[in-house]
């Protein structure tokens, strides 16, 4: 057990990657024409579900460890930080890992209801996606963050077009090209940071950036802005959010539900880099992006909910709600105080689960409406109006923030945290207004689909959804309701996580060891083996 305890932090990355490789070796059932009962597919399902379930247990164990306040740094191959690969588990990382597993398990279970047979290697790609997500959440190094971004993206490119069709390929091409352009910007930002600080380790950066002044600080801040563009693109921050609804609405339901956690990788990275490294106590670069981040976040919320009101299909409505919820989380981030961050973490956990549940629910409803599918027009009544309508009502209430559901608790925490902030009025108006409009948007969709039914159309052959699909959706909704029931312990955890996140000294001590307390960590490289820091120009960069 001691061995397990030592290597626990790396397991969330190793487990999905090992599972994915085994799934690749296992082979594929051979595409669309295979029957659902194919032997290889059955084994792939069992293996994938077992792996995700183990992942859930591991991340729960990590949350348990992190809740005690311990900040675990795992140095791969015992190479000392900042030179080797550092894996860092603090409360924030552990929370994101648990959230990923909580979304992944029901979504995978849902996918085994049939979607995984509509294309090839669904399960292997799903595991690679989880590997990338988990890796991005645990890494303590900016370049490794880039690598894990690419891992999760390349898996998401293929998952995005899973099920195929011309519409998916067209949107998929846009999605891939946009992401590749963003990756180029990511590399430019990262190398600019390296040029001025001589390090890419997040703990080391947090110590180095405050020491940079004068014209060098301008370069470092330019790097911060570039990284905001990259992470803002992933998170769908205002001017960069238009790709998201088209992409998520085109993807099949389980993939879109899994993508609900993918936007949070962008939010997570903004938190780590702009919230902490370029946050308070960053010297000349303190609060670099704050002046623009808050208005943009508020704008993202408003744009998201306006898009939801204008949506013609239920899936597009949910995709726009994803944008709105990301906006609310970023508002919390941009307030730059521990209470708001705690509220943001709580709201992010809840909204991710709710959005994932809504994507699954949207497909369940669409499947029972005959030719109208998910378009918001009057059509044949659904086969299970009470069950699906009730579930939609519950998730809608949580998404819009009605008490006593967790969306309400998260927003209340956010409103409380924003008092005395100069932007308080804007935050209150936006958060409350967006909540109200979310409710209107979902109520409109719900009343068209469940009440405004046409009896003149021939009865569709739609039967009720299979218990597996309903069960998976129920599991996600149960998780959000549980967040309301256990709100007090979760709130204590997020409050502690927010405080721990802002404590760059403790983070540096955990990762860099005793050297973390020394004033000088890594310095920009001078080209001399033993040259003192000041004598850089002797050899002369040429």
């Amino acid at each position, binding site marked *: 057990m001691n061995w397990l305890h030592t290597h626990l932090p790396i397991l969330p990355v190793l487990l999905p990657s090992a599972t994915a490789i085994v799934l690749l070796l296992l082979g594929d059932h051979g595409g669309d024409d295979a029957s659902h009962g194919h032997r290889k597919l059955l084994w792939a399902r069992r293996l994938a579900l077992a792996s995700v379930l183990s992942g859930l247990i591991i991340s729960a164990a990590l949350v348990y460890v992190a809740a005690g306040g311990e900040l675990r740094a795992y140095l791969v191959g015992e190479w000392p930080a900042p030179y080797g690969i550092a894996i860092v588990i603090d409360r924030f990382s552990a929370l994101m890992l648990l959230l990923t597993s909580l979304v992944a398990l029901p979504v995978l279970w849902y996918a085994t209801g049939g979607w995984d047979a509509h294309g090839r290697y669904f399960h292997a790609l799903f595991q690679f996606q989880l590997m990338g997500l988990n890796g991005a959440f645990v890494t303590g190094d900016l370049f490794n963050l880039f690598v894990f971004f690419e891992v999760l993206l390349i898996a998401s490119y293929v998952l995005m077009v899973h099920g195929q069709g011309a519409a998916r390929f067209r949107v998929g091409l846009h999605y891939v090209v946009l992401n*590749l352009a963003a990756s180029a910007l990511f590399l430019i930002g990262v190398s600019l940071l390296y040029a001025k600080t001589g390090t890419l380790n997040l703990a080391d950066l947090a110590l180095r950036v405050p020491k940079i002044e004068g014209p060098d600080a301008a370069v470092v801040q330019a790097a911060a802005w570039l990284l905001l563009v990259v992470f803002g693109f992933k998170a769908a921050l205002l001017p960069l959010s238009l790709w998201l609804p088209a992409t998520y609405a085109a993807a099949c339901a389980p993939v879109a539900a899994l993508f609900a956690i993918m936007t949070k990788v962008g939010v997570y990275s903004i938190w780590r880099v702009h919230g902490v490294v370029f946050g308070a106590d960053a010297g000349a670069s303190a609060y670099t992006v704050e002046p623009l981040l808050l208005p943009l976040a508020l704008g993202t919320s408003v744009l998201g909910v306006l898009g939801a009101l204008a949506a013609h299909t239920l899936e597009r409505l949910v995709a726009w709600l994803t944008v709105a919820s990301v906006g609310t989380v970023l508002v919390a981030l941009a307030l730059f105080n521990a209470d708001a961050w705690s509220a943001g973490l709580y709201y992010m956990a809840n909204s991710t689960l709710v959005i994932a549940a809504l994507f699954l629910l949207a497909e369940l409803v669409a499947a029972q409406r005959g030719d109208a599918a998910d378009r918001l027009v009057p059509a044949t009544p659904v086969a299970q109006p009470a069950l699906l309508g009730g579930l939609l009502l519950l998730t809608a209430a949580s998404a819009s923030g009605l008490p006593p559901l967790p969306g309400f608790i998260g927003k209340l925490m956010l409103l409380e945290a924003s008092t005395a902030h100069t932007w308080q009025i804007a935050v209150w108006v936006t958060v409350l207004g967006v909540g109200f409009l979310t409710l209107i948007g979902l109520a409109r969709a719900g009343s068209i689909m469940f009440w405004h039914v046409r009896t003149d159309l021939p009865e569709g052959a739609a039967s009720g959804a299979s218990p597996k699909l309903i069960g998976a959706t129920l599991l996600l909704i149960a998780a959000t309701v549980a967040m309301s029931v256990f709100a007090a312990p979760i709130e204590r955890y997020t409050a502690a996580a927010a405080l721990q996140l802002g404590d760059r000294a403790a983070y540096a001590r955990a990762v860099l060891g005793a050297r973390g307390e020394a004033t000088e960590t890594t310095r920009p490289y001078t080209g001399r083996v033993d040259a003192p820091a000041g004598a850089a120009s002797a050899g002369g960069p040429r």
Partner: protein
Amino acid sequence: MSISMEFLFATGIGWVVAVGIYLLLRGRSFVVVLGLSLIGYAVNVFIFTMGRLWSAAPPILGAKESITDPLPQALVLTAIVIGFATTGFVIELALRSRHDSGSDHVDGKPDAAEPR
């Protein structure tokens, strides 16, 4: 007149990125992929130069008095590998999209809609 290495690199990278952006904004997916590749090359050279430009300094410890920073070179290797793989993927995706929609246009418009 001698041009400094820094000037040459900076203008060179800038020119390649400019060409890449121009191609990226075109309507045909093949040209867009070319633009992405060019931007990728420029970014790789940019990472390389962020370890400063040195001459006669190998990235080997103890080989000479002055050594160059090996880390950006390691980073650029990773970036090249990832860029190569993603470019391969996007070409395959573009081909498939072309096959399914019958057009090379990024929005899948029919060929007639786009002046050549």
